[in-house]
């Protein structure tokens, strides 16, 4: 164990010196050192690579980080790319939660169709980066802080109250849960009316989009 730690430390120092000589940028340097450190920690503790909790935590970290980048990045194009990363993370979560068909739908519909629409519009309008965020000042800020604290307390309370619930065992489900067959069976029996109404909604949306976006004729 100590041998591994020492080896990792020497490796980090060596890579630090190499990157310092090669890359003058400070953020690149910090990122590389952090990444090498994380890799060294994993190399020492490689058992973690086998646990689903580690992978779920990693995906959650990437999801939160990409969502933050969507909100704070001034360039809309970069926001779209980070939103696609976020959608892929949620599709992976669906796979963990035994919703295989929804994971496929998430990638095809969201990342494949809706995001292409967003990319198309941003490219078409050729937007420039925003000047600044709409951060209100004065009493608004304190109200927002109060509401945020209340929200966090409520969420903590709600999640804490559930702490006696049992664990979810990934192997303990009947086969077919979350499959296309099961979802289709439900859609075409119990939820048939809602399904047909969804088709009406889609065609109304399509016609509405054409009418709103087209030029005036004549």
């Amino acid at each position, binding site marked *: 164990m100590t041998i591994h730690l020492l080896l990792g430390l020497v490796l980090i120092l060596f890579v630090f010196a190499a990157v310092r000589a090669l890359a003058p940028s400070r953020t690149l340097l910090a990122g590389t050192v952090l990444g090498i450190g994380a890799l060294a920690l994993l190399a020492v503790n490689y058992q973690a690579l086998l646990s689903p909790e580690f992978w779920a935590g990693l995906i959650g970290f990437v999801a939160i980080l990409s969502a933050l980048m969507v909100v704070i990045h001034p360039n809309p194009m970069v926001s779209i790319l980070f939103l696609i990363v976020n959608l892929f993370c949620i599709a992976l*979560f669906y796979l963990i939660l035994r919703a295989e068909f929804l994971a496929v739908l998430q990638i095809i519909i969201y990342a494949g169709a809706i995001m292409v629409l967003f990319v198309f519009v941003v490219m078409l309008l050729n937007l420039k980066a925003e000047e600044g965020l709409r951060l209100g000042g004065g009493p608004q800020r304190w109200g927002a802080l109060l509401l945020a604290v209340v929200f966090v307390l409520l969420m903590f309370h709600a999640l804490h109250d559930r702490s006696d619930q049992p664990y979810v065992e990934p192997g303990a489900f009947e086969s077919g849960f979350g499959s296309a067959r099961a979802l289709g069976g439900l859609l075409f029996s119990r939820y048939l009316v809602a399904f047909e109404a969804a088709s009406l909604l889609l065609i109304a949306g399509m016609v509405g989009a054409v009418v709103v976006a087209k030029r005036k004729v004549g």
Partner: protein
Amino acid sequence: MRVEFFLLIGALLFAIGCAGVLIRRNAIVILMCIELMLNAVNLTFVAFALENQSMTGHIFVFFVMTVAAAEAAIGLAIVIALFRRRRTTDVEDASLMRW
């Protein structure tokens, strides 16, 4: 693995999307933040569906995806119409109908 983990991630994503709707000026980015919030709710639906061993949550996610697709199409059409008239997508400049 605990269901609470996914609920927590969903709550955080929803809060981030909500903050984005409130603080951004660009109408397209506001639409993207709405998509973020819809996805957070979908994640919560799927987590509860697994806990309760019921596929009804999956049906809800399916319909939320349908509504999100229609909403994105209409919203982007409105953004294009706005840009054609005003040469901007800033929501501060589109305040004709605001009280």
